[in-house]
């Protein structure tokens, strides 16, 4: 059965790129345009991995991760945080909030899948 990924980014282009990459590797995807949107969609179906941007309007990535981790269904779900070099401090904050790992922008589809495959099987 295809795995389902929840992709959260306020940037349409980044979201498109991540979902396209995941879909090309056989994932089903659900898209969230910010933390709040993703949280609302998180109960629609079982989710195998969450990939979220950090800096978003309405609800940022860290808050989303904390909210997801508070749900029993997301206790063990891998959550990847998309960050940039300049947000080094945020990585630890994300980690503390419950992120499984992070991905530093810019990245290409191969790098993304390499990391995704580390946490989803």
């Amino acid at each position, binding site marked *: 059965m295809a795995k389902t990924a929840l992709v959260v980014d*306020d940037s349409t282009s*980044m979201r498109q790129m991540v979902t396209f990459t995941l879909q090309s590797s056989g994932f089903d995807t659900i898209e969230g345009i910010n933390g709040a949107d993703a949280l609302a969609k998180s109960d629609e179906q079982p989710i195998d991995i969450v990939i979220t941007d950090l800096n978003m309007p309405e609800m940022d990535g860290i808050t989303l991760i904390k909210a997801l981790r508070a749900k029993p269904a997301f206790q063990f779900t891998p959550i990847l945080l998309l960050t940039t070099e300049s947000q080094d401090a945020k990585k*630890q904050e994300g*980690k503390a909030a419950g992120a499984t790992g992070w991905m530093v922008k810019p*990245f290409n589809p191969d790098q993304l899948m390499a990391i995704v495959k580390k*946490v989803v099987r």
Partner: protein
Amino acid sequence: MQIDMSQFRAAFYVEAAEHLQYMEAALLQLENAPRDTELLNTIFRGAHSIKGASTTFGIDEVGRFTHVLENLLERLRDGIVDTTSELIELLLASVDIIDALVANAKDGSPMPENMEQVLSELRRVNGQASTESSSKVSASDAVVTPQSSYRVTLLPSREFFRFGQDPMLLLRELCELGTVIKNNLNDTALPSLAEIEPEQCYLSWTLELATEKPERTIHDAFMFLDAGSTYTVEPIQATTSSPIGAESTSSTAAQTASVTEPTTESIEKPEKEVAENRSGNDRRTAPTTAKAGGENETVRVDRQRLDELINQIGELVIGASMVEQEIVSIAGGRGLESMSGLGKIVRDLQEMSLGLRMVPIAATFQKMNRVIRDVAKKVGKQINFVTTGDETELDKSVVDQISDPLVHMVRNAADHGIETPEDRIAAGKPAEGVVTLRAYQQGGNVYIELIDDGRGLNRKRILAKAVERGLIAADTNLSDAEICNLIFLPGFSTAAAVTDVSGRGVGMDVVRRNVEALQGSVSVKSEEGKGSTITVRLPLTLAILDGLLVRLSDEVFVIPLLSVIESICVSANEIHSIVGVGEVISLRGEVVPLLRLHHALNIKANDQGDEQGLLVIVEDQGKRLALRVDDLIGQQQVVIKNLETNFRKVPGVSGATILGDGHVALILDIFGLSNLNYDSPKTTTGHPAPDNAGAERCIK
């Protein structure tokens, strides 16, 4: 994996434009609220998002520039740098540069000329605040020794496997970093076989690793560790107190702490954070919704697909009305009721489909904010810019095309309309002038009003200028409104001196031409000393048109109702000929050129008799024209079909439509027709002109 990144660029261009727009708006607001964190966040987020996406999609110029900008914005957000008006100026310039860089990536438009200058300015401002942090970075880089050894321990949580993790993957990754000197498996926690839970992890490891890589890369290997698991990295060599060593112990300590009390971490903190964020959100949503609901959840659709859908629904409307007519003739009215029910649904559907193209004018209005600000700064005026009716919706293509004329009008109002503070005070007005941009919908039209409380139009000067330029005769009697509207004539400009703000006299006639190209009209009202109001009327959409259907021999043509003034009957002896003009009629003392559409469009006339000639008087760009037609059929809303894409451009014809009976009718282009008229051979019989002054005016 072969994925072409360029396919995501289209979405990037759209979102970059949006971000830049929000950034600009926020920067302008920031001038009045220099420490508004929400504004600062918006600006930062925009730059950050553009940077992340542009580097990912390989638009490196944008990435490099935004990187420098982002550094500065970060300091601004963190309060290290102060918001001064010079800084806002610099940031606005940066927004312009990103805009130009994105345009360059998109369609190869020229690179912004002042990029290097802005870049070095950004670096300069940045440099003042960044010296400490950059020195810190270089220091830590320097400490990394060629080869160091570390003791690395990994203590997976019991739930380790449930997080989808595998200790072997991790250990292998560590091995790749360098040479493993020692490898120690700790299995003391392993229970007896009977008690083992196969999904749980009971093992832990200690490695001694020699590597050339900085310690940070070892930490990176553990990035996917769940919160319950823990690891430590400690240098084995007795290194002197390096800052990295200190750093690593503290981060390890933090992680160990999270292991000892995982429950409090996971339960208390999220709730608190969520609550905090919610209250933060409330503050945020208020101004957002005020922004004309611009942040509603949307689906982006390719414009062409949308147009195809709308076009197809237009066809449906035509198809339905053809069926309707056939039912009437075949079934004698039976089934007409259900047919008209269907017709209503189809028309509703059409209305909804046209609504899909509607966008609020807010974004265009917001651009004017910047225009006003720049002009006011340049010419030393104080202007309060107010917009109302931002949420008024218009067809996307109308909104796109009205932007330039509006910029021109707004510039004019700020440059010529509003007086200098000294002049205003001398005239008993507040020093700060007010420019208002107002939009509202009335009937099938949207009105945009530009109101300023400046000096108003100077009638005497306008008249004198118009005469001087030969636009009107010196003895012409004009109403007040007519005088004001002279400013829309080509080549008219009263600015005593040409300023570099409002350009050189290509002003309002261009505005008028642009507006009329959108099937709209523009007029001005003004009271001297009190201000002016310019009103632009625009159709809601360019996809449909209110037309007057006329018959020429056996063919039906559509005249845009907007251009129609009236229709009259004249007898043959009321038609005169003037040398160099051709046939004319005298309409209440005004000489109006006559155009026989049969002749212009090369249609065989059925009834050559000019007795009871039926004329439609039309006006375009101030020029009146009498069109000779055979019959008036009626008014009808028609769906515009582009002739150029299906056939080729035909002078005097702006498009075509399909009538209810399935026939194609051409839509006449009045402006094109009036030019056609002057190209056609002119009759030269010498009837005296009935009103010479009027004739002169016409010729001009």
